[in-house]
């Protein structure tokens, strides 16, 4: 979004509200447009045009043959969206299942990866730590490895007779059949205490073709393995962001806290973390977007199975379009996903908003060199 802002800056003097004879500044607008035109062209062709085409497809009955703008493709309104959300058929249930799976995935992955990456960042930022470079590299390594390679590794680790189950067996336990176990972990836990079927008010009412009892099933064991994988692979990336953030924080405030007698936990919770808020926002936003779009692990690993418990909207969209030639449905799923991501981002922006600052704090900020955050 920075690209459109730049020409505007250059174009300002040329706008009709200002005298045109700008002297030396004359012609700058044209030059400005010229300089940004490559970016606008590239973004326009490869980003905006496809998005708009996809939006049109989601409102059309295009079947994947010839151009979506040709005369024999017609506008069908919100039919595709209706079929997905209130149609009540298999499509609605598949979409509900995919949303259920992905919601659990997001609910578990985002907090876990944020907490873990922050924890790792604090660890590797400690002045006292020897070989910091080694640990940073080691923790970052999974992030730069191809997700396909990691998925294959994961399938091997969590196979029925694989290393993970061997370790569990070594401790005397019996590991589950990870990637073939469709039962949700909440349901498993409940059946552990003898609850095998939900109350009527949960099982009799449904949303998107899925009973509330099914919504509450939790991620399946297979999905849990993928959740572990996501946390494992992404923590390194976000650790790097947090390390950068931590390096930007001066030691003065921590030192002041030390003088005031704050212990280690208090210093972290009340001094370091609040200063990291912009980074936390970035990490959670990127995490949310990445988690809602999870695709490659599913495509290379489970293909949605067992029993559709690793089906995600992104994979469902691919399946609908490329396997079943229902391009409108596929595009509609993608746009619903887009809306979900926007809503989640706005919500967390609201949660992490800058709250009104007390006078005492304002005075503290005014003398501080870090006044920027409060001013914007």
């Amino acid at each position, binding site marked *: 979004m920075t690209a459109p802002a730049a020409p505007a800056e250059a174009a300002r003097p040329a706008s009709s509200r200002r005298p045109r004879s700008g002297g030396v500044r004359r012609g700058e607008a044209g030059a400005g447009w010229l300089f940004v035109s490559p970016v*606008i062209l590239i973004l326009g062709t490869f980003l905006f045009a496809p998005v708009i085409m996809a939006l049109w497809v989601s409102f059309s009955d295009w079947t994947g*043959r*010839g151009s979506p*703008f040709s005369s024999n493709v017609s506008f069908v309104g919100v039919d595709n969206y209706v079929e997905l959300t209130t149609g009540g058929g*298999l499509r609605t249930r598949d979409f509900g299942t995919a949303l259920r799976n992905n919601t659990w995935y997001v609910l578990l992955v985002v907090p876990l990866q944020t907490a873990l990456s922050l924890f790792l960042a604090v660890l590797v930022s400690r002045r006292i730590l020897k070989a910091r470079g080694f640990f940073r590299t080691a923790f970052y390594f999974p992030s730069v490895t191809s997700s396909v390679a990691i998925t294959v590794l994961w399938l091997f680790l969590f196979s029925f007779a694989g290393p993970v189950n061997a370790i569990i067996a070594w401790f005397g336990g019996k590991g589950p059949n990870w990637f073939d176990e469709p039962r949700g972990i909440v349901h498993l836990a409940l059946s552990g205490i003898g609850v095998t079927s939900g109350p009527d008010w949960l099982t009799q009412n449904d949303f998107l073709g899925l009973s509330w009892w099914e919504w509450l099933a939790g991620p399946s064991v297979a999905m849990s393995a993928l959740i572990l994988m996501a946390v494992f692979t992404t923590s390194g990336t976000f650790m790097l962001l947090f390390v950068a953030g931590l390096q930007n924080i001066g030691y003065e405030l921590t030192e002041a806290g030390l003088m005031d007698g704050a212990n280690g936990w208090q210093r972290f919770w009340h001094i370091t973390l609040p200063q990291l808020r912009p980074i936390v926002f970035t990490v959670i936003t990127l995490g949310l977007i990445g988690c809602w779009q999870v695709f490659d692990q599913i495509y290379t690993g489970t293909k949605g199975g*067992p029993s559709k418990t690793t089906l995600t909207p992104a994979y469902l969209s691919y399946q609908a379009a490329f396997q079943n030639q229902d391009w409108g449905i596929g595009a509609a799923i993608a746009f619903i996903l887009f809306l979900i991501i926007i809503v989640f981002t706005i919500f967390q922006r609201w949660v992490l908003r800058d709250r009104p600052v007390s006078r005492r704090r304002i005075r503290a900020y005014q003398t501080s060199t870090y006044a920027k955050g409060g001013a914007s």
Partner: protein
Amino acid sequence: MTRHTARTLLATGGLAVVTALALTGCGQGFTETPPSESGAATDLTSSDEGLTIMIGSSGDAETNAVKDAVAAWSADSGVDAEVVAATDLAQQLSQGFAAGSPPDLFYLGTDQLAGYAENGSLQPYGDMLANKDDFYDSLVSNFTLDGTFYCAPKDFSTLQLIINQGLWEDAGLTDADVPTTWEELASVAEKLTDDDTVGLVFSGEYARVGVFMAQAGGRLVSEDGTTAEADSDANVEALSYVQEHLKDGTFAYAADVGAGWGGEAFGKELGAMTIEGNWITGALGDFPDVQAKVVELPAGPAGQGTLQFSNCWGMAADSPNQQAALELVEYLTSAEQQLAFSEAFGPMPSVESAAEQWKGDNEDLVAFLDGSQYAQGVPTNKGAGEVVTDFNAQLQSLESGDPKAILDSVQSNLEAIVG
């Protein structure tokens, strides 16, 4: 504030112009070659253009065999032809169709047929084939939609019972004990089951469990493809039979014994018998100690039954040289060429005239070909793939599920797409 608005306006205006330009650019690119209306077209196109053949290959053996065959035809006919082995056939085909320049010929599965036929991507040519009457009738009906025979089956396979000879003899069983009824199957499975090995192991999906439905006299969709009959008593009986033996531990799904599919479970001797097709012979090369014997599946309450799977040579409606493509298909599906393919990478010929020779060459696998007498195809209706996927998902928990409830949900899903 006004300044800000002006800025934004200018910026978005510029973007909109560029986007519009880009879009028209794309639009022109697309509309230069308007897709011809197929279905109504009965005449094949003909030109000097070369052919592109896109295959989803199982490996080098298949790719090379197809390339050699096409090259031989090309030299003979004088028409250029190029074979492309797709890495993701469905996706690459979709790209071709959307751009209006699909491959001329391509592998097409029964589950994809209806989708492409409905949007007019396919040129139906079955009735124009010179060797049309040579194909097995059941295969022809697999690739017939609304009375139109779309494409020539390139080969096929059926499911039969594979027995581990070593474990069979260890359990004191002889050739006379080969099961011919469900009761006998259950009793040999019980004898073959011990602590490490389950009697019969197969994947928990319609494409395996469906054989029991066929033996009970059931199907998912009626033979003419117009009525859903998933909730028939025959199907309930079949699933109940499977469920009963999953519960008593003499049958098991491959996943539940820690194998990816029946062939793997069989090779690792996690299962003494499995239900698979003739592709299992390739996989068993990894397990030289296992002696496999192929016999026909037992008969159920309604007699013998199995499932068959096939791909066909799809022809693109947008192909500029369909006449040459038709000739190439006739060449590739001739008995002689199919026998050569069979030798190179193992599929069963889809034409009856190759049957005798094939049986002679593959004496151990005769049961697979015999299955063509009573095999039924999988549903081909548009959207059937999704329904079967959903059925598979439910079959995975058949052991604790209710067969009737599972089939009822399949029935309602099928009713939405059939007819």
